[in-house]
């Protein structure tokens, strides 16, 4: 049997070549370019930056290029309040949204896991269908509801809950609704996957030992669902930090999230080096929790063995 496995590994190793090369070329190398351009001067040209490396010119050019590398863009990021505030706002928005997502998503995932076995695939499909539906469409659907004479205001007016239409669109409330709505499946699905795997006998044992259902939940179910919480939080938090479309369409024109700032620098101001520097810093800010998570998970795997 192990012999058969060993025979398997050789063709399987050949299978790695194509995807490996692809990812190296189209995922790893591009980051090299981002870093490189973040270190170069901006210029009004096409492409709008001064190239720094010219490998063809040999070693001297290389050392000259290193001497010419500039940290100006990074200095700009620190010195200009706009960027610092954008980063902070993104982190705050992501943290608040993720907390709301957890609060809403956990009960949904828990209820799904408690459904009779036969119903669970249907419930899962019902959660997945909106996730497959274009997120742009889902954001757009909310614009229909939240605009000045939209359905929400019409309903509130008809119920006499308010006397004049409220402003929903272009507010932070609208943005949070949009984010929570779009990312809910990303929170529910990993939580459900973890909760559905927990054997109900654990809770029965806790009940036999005198736990009330609520205590059993906090002492047994909740701690065991922590890996699902970790996965859900990460799947939501990191992309939300870099979110561009939802704040652009739903939030007001006040303070920007960092994804919007990057977009603005890139497409409107055409300052590619600053946009790249923003991306590099954002990556550094986001990579840290990812690496911590990865390490925690590995430790857990090793502990489980």
């Amino acid at each position: 049997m192990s012999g058969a496995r060993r025979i398997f590994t050789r063709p399987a190793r050949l299978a790695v070549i194509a995807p490996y090369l692809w990812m190296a070329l189209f995922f790893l190398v591009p980051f090299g370019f981002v870093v490189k351009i973040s270190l170069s001067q901006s210029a009004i040209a096409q492409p709008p930056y001064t190239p720094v490396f010219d490998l063809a010119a040999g070693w001297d050019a290389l050392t000259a290029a290193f001497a010419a590398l500039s940290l100006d863009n990074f200095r700009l990021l620190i010195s200009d309040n706009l960027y610092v505030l954008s980063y902070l706002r993104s982190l705050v928005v992501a943290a608040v949204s993720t907390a709301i997502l957890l609060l809403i998503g956990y009960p949904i995932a828990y209820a799904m896991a408690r459904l009779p076995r036969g119903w669970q695939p249907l419930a899962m499909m019902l959660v997945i269908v909106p996730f497959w539906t274009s997120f742009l469409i889902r954001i757009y659907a909310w614009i229909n509801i939240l605009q000045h004479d939209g359905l929400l205001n019409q309903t509130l007016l008809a119920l006499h809950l308010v006397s004049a239409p409220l402003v929903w669109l272009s507010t932070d409330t609208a943005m949070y609704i949009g984010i929570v709505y779009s990312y809910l499946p990303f929170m529910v699905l990993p939580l459900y996957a973890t909760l559905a795997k927990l054997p109900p006998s654990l809770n029965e044992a806790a009940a036999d030992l005198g736990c009330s259902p609520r205590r059993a939940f906090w002492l047994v179910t909740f701690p065991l669902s922590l890996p699902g919480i970790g996965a859900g939080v990460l799947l939501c938090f990191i992309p939300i930090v870099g979110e561009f479309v939802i704040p652009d369409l739903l939030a007001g024109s006040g303070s920007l999230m960092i994804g919007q700032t990057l977009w603005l620098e890139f497409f409107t101001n055409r300052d590619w080096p600053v946009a790249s520097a923003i991306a590099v810093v954002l990556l550094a800010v986001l990579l840290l929790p990812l690496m911590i998570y990865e390490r925690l998970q590995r430790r857990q795997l090793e502990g489980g063995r």
Partner: protein
Amino acid sequence: MKLSRFNLVSLTLGLAFLYLPIVIMVIYSFNDSRLVTVWGGWSLRWYRELFQDEAMLAAAWMSLRVALASATAAAVLGTLAAVALSRAGHFRGRTLFSGMLYAPLVMPEVITGLSLLLLFVALNAERGFWTVTIAHTTLTMCFVAVVVQSRLGSLDRSYEEAAMDLGCGPVEAFFQATVPLIWPAIAAGWMLAFALSLDDLVIASFTTGPGSATLPIRIYSEVRLGVKPQINAICTLIVAVVTLAIVIASLASKLSRAKADSAAPM
């Protein structure tokens, strides 16, 4: 297990939250009134206008071609990656490889889009269909790899080993025994890649050139100008297509699982 009232309420509210906005949008796509919020009776006029909007149709065609090409490439590359990760044991650079495969799943799209664009600019590639397709393949093959890998992980290897005992080489055993068994996962991965590609706005905005907008780029530029009934119509069409595709896919996978179960009783 009985569902408590609390569970029932949270599930109902959760699903209502997920579906209500879409249902409202679908209903209003049949609204005859030019004003989006005033109900003017049932009508198909916005669908008619949509099919006369040539820019929108061209964008839809572009999106469809990109999605077909990138989903197919992603299915092949993603399956290969999944096979490597679950069957190759330890190889040099495995950590880097799996890191590269998982990173795009959580990476903010603005970073992925920006970095790919800078690569294309550096390579002096003409931006358009091919650059968007490459970008989408890169992103979606990671999703395919995850889907296929989870299926491969739960697959009993005795099928492959039996095929080899019967005289198949490892590659032949893989195609004769494994591929038919993981076919539903590959198909599901292809569909996921297809849907993600159709859906993507940010990466396509970075990697496309002038004159080759995808459908989300067109919709986005329209939505920024304000709500229009045609947008309700095209969004409804997309929702309908996606829902239909999911229903077909789940039926197909149920069927193939039933077939596999009856063919190979465990």
